[in-house]
Structures are given as structure tokens and as C-alpha cells.
């Protein structure tokens, strides 16, 4: 399973965002996408999701259809009239998941994301971190082969941010889906990404993350050294 970008060129209102990009996203890998504002990080997700089409070039999907790709948005994607349980059930209803298995599925997701006690609570009554956990649960309910996340922790405090990052790593390890995370937070990009992509000057640059094998990365100097190196790459 892979997504292959071949000579992808994209312009929007006379703005050139991608110039002949060639890149292959491989299965069971976490990619984080960094880049200065306005370079088209979210646009790349739209292209991968087929929400928009490249001006030139093609995107090829191998052993994958567009319904296997699910996006978790930055914020405000959950309906305020729904409870947590209804929210997790929505994709199951839309995809006509068997009614008899829905409750078990919702309970399993709630357990994985520590949402068991919040199932009957309405969305506006949740904290930012809880909302994001529900949004991730809603995405996972679709059983995606590719999970796209657009700045999933941008509006969260440090504690909630780290909690979401741990959940994303745990779920990816368990399910083995491809995950592409857009973020402006370099530390997050290095913590989550096995491969770090830098979108700059209309091109994608790939950096392999050498710190993924470290045991306690948040307390390891090598992790922060790589963060500094990535920061230089983004800024130069």
C-alpha cells in the first residue's frame, strides 16, 4: 500500500505551491509535515484526500481507495448537538457498519481513548484535549488505512498535547496505518515522525528521524539536538 506523487504541480490563484514533486508515501509509516506558513501543508493533505486535484502530474494509490483515507481536522469538526457516543457512531452509521456490532465498536474505541466516562456528554462540555481525542476516535472508527491529521494539537496545552501524541503513536503501532501529520511544532514533528517532510520552496525534502529508537525521547539530549537541526532546516 502506498501513495505515489509523480511530478505533482499545484498552483492556486497564480500562487505556485508545489513544483514537480515526486514522492512516495509508504505503508505503516508516520510522516510529519513541517514548513513555513502558507507553503501548502494543508493543501497537500487535500490533494492526498482527493479534495482537490493537482494542476499537473498524478497521484497514484496502490492497494488503496480514497475511502480508506480519513482526515482529522484542526478543530471545530465535531457537531455540538451530539454526545461523544453519537459522535463516534456517526461514521459507523454513514458507512452502514452492522448495527449489532456498533455498541461494541464504540465501547472499544472509548476504552482505547479513555473516553468511557464521557460517552453521554455533549461535545461543548468537553475540554480541548478531550475534543481532540473524540475527533481521533471518530477518524479511527472509519478503520482508515491512511490517517491525515491537520495540526491535531495546535490549540492544546502541553499536557493535553503530549497525551494526544502518545495516543497517536499507540494507535498507529496497534493498527499499522500510514499517518501523515501536518504540524508547525518542530518538537511534535520530531516526536511523532519516523520520516519528517519539510515543505519549502515548492519542494518536499525528506529527513529520516534518527531518534525514534530512543527509549525516553522527551528526556534525551539527542532528541533536542535533532529538533535544533530541524529548526535550522525550517528557518534557512
Amino acid at each position: 500500500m502506498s501513495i505515489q506523487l509523480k511530478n505533482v504541480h499545484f498552483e492556486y490563484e497564480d500562487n505556485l505551491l508545489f513544483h514537480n514533486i515526486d514522492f512516495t508515501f509508504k505503508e505503516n509509516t508516520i510522516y510529519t509535515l513541517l514548513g513555513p506558513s502558507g507553503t501548502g501543508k494543508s493543501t497537500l493533505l487535500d490533494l492526498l484526500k482527493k479534495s482537490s486535484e493537482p494542476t499537473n502530474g498524478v497521484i497514484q494509490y496502490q492497494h488503496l481507495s480514497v475511502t480508506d483515507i480519513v482526515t482529522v481536522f484542526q478543530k471545530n469538526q465535531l457537531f455540538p448537538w451530539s454526545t461523544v457516543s453519537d459522535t463516534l457512531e456517526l461514521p459507523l452509521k454513514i458507512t452502514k457498519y452492522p448495527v449489532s456490532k456498533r455498541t461494541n465498536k464504540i465501547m472499544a474505541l472509548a476504552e482505547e481513548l479513555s473516553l468511557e466516562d464521557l460517552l453521554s456528554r455533549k461535545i461543548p462540555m468537553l475540554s480541548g484535549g478531550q475534543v481532540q481525542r473524540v475527533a481521533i476516535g471518530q477518524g479511527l472508527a472509519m478503520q482508515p488505512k491512511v490517517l491525515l491529521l491537520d495540526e491535531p494539537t495546535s490549540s492544546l496545552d502541553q499536557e493535553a498535547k503530549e497525551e494526544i501524541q502518545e495516543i497517536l503513536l499507540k494507535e498507529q503501532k496497534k493498527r499499522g496505518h500510514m499517518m501523515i501529520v501536518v504540524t508547525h511544532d518542530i518538537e511534535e514533528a520530531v516526536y511523532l515522525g519516523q520520516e519528517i517532510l519539510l515543505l519549502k520552496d515548492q519542494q518536499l525534502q525528506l529527513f529520516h528521524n534518527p531518534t525514534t529508537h530512543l527509549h525516553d525521547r522527551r528526556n534525551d539530549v539527542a532528541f533536542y539536538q535533532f529538533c535544533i537541526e530541524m529548526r535550522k532546516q525550517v528557518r534557512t
Partner: protein
Amino acid sequence: MNQYRSSFFRSLSLGILSYLGVWYLIYFVSQNHAIPDPLVTISNMWTTKEVLFLHTSASTLRILAALFFSIIVGVPTGILLSTYPQLDRIISPLLYFLYPLPKVALLPVLMLFWGLGDFSKILLLFSIIVLQMIVLVRDGANRIPKNYQKTMTNFHASTWQRIYYLMLPAVFPHILVSLRTSIGIALASLFFAENYATQYGLGYLILSSWTKMDYVEMFSGIFCIALLGFLFFQVIDFLERFSYRS
């Protein structure tokens, strides 16, 4: 549920007591035979309760029928106009033209086309409620955040799924707002609608007792209309519990 029931009865008693209080004050100050003694009127209401029940039922059924058809027509039309802005640009000028028109002025025309029976009366009430509902539902649907639409696209929802899971719950508060404002106008219009070719209805009761100068009966009818309005508002308040506030 128990909490709602006790709140309903508290609200009902408070409403009736304050209504009677204001009425008694006007009766006491005016000392005019056109304003009857509230206690005499209440006692008359009890003795004529069967007749009052028939009049109130007739009016209630007409309003319920008008509400039903307004929802059936107004909600899909509002959603349709929001979904297809080109259609909205064509239809909206007509809506805005008809909206401020006093619909009771159309009653003779409605009677000419659809006769003197219940249908033309219900049609009049319908014409009052439905325009407001279309406009409010359309505006409500237009205000649905783009992110919610993106969520439905993300899950590859069909048009019907979008309508059922997103648009209907999102416009539900707007339906209630339109009902709240139009029920008052619809009740007021009963006077005109029930003035012709009927012997049942609160409008008929009030107008016929007015011409007979039977003010006790007239105020009994007015009290029933007030009670009916109160009950409709309570139902809307109850439904609002299932709604969300944006």
C-alpha cells in the same frame, strides 16, 4: 422528566395568576361592563367547559394542521435554497415580496379558490407560518460551519446522510424559533379565519359573543386562546431541550 413537569406546573400557575391579576386590575380600574369580573368568567368557563373544549379543539386542530404542513414544506424548501444558491437567488426576491404582505388580506382570495371550509382557513395559517420557516431554515442552513460539511465529506456521506445527520439537527433550533414567532401571529389570525362559515373555533366564539355583547363568553374565549398559546410555547420549550444553542 419530573423536573420538567414541576417546572411546567409552576410556570402554568404563575402565568394564570399573573394573567388574572392584570385582568382583575383592569376590571377594577375601568369599571366598564365590557370587562367582566374574572371570577364570574372563570365560573362561566367551568359551566360551559364542554362547549369551550369543542371551540378550543377546533382551533387547535387547524393550527396543528397548518404547523404540520408548514414543517413539511418549509424545512425541505429552506434546505433546498441553502443547498442551491442559484435557486435561492431566483426564489428569495419572491419570498421577500410575499413575507411582509398581511396574509389575512388573502383570505377572500383563498376562500374564492378553495371554498369556505377548513382547507382555506388552514391555508391562511399555513401561509403565515411557512414563509417565515423557509427563510429561517435557509439562514440556519447557510450558517452551518464549513468544517461540519468537511466532516461529512471526509466520511463520504451521501446527500441524504448530510441532510439527516447534519442539516436537520443544525436547523432544528431555527425551526423552533420560527414556530415560536409564528404561533403568536397564527393565533391572532384565527379571528379572521374563523369568522366565516364555521360554528366552531375560538375566533368564531370571540367574535360571535362580541356581536351578542356577551362579554363573559368573549373573555372565556380570550382566556382559552391565551391558554392555548401558553401550551404551544411550553411544547416548544420542551423540544428546545433536544436542541443545541449555537
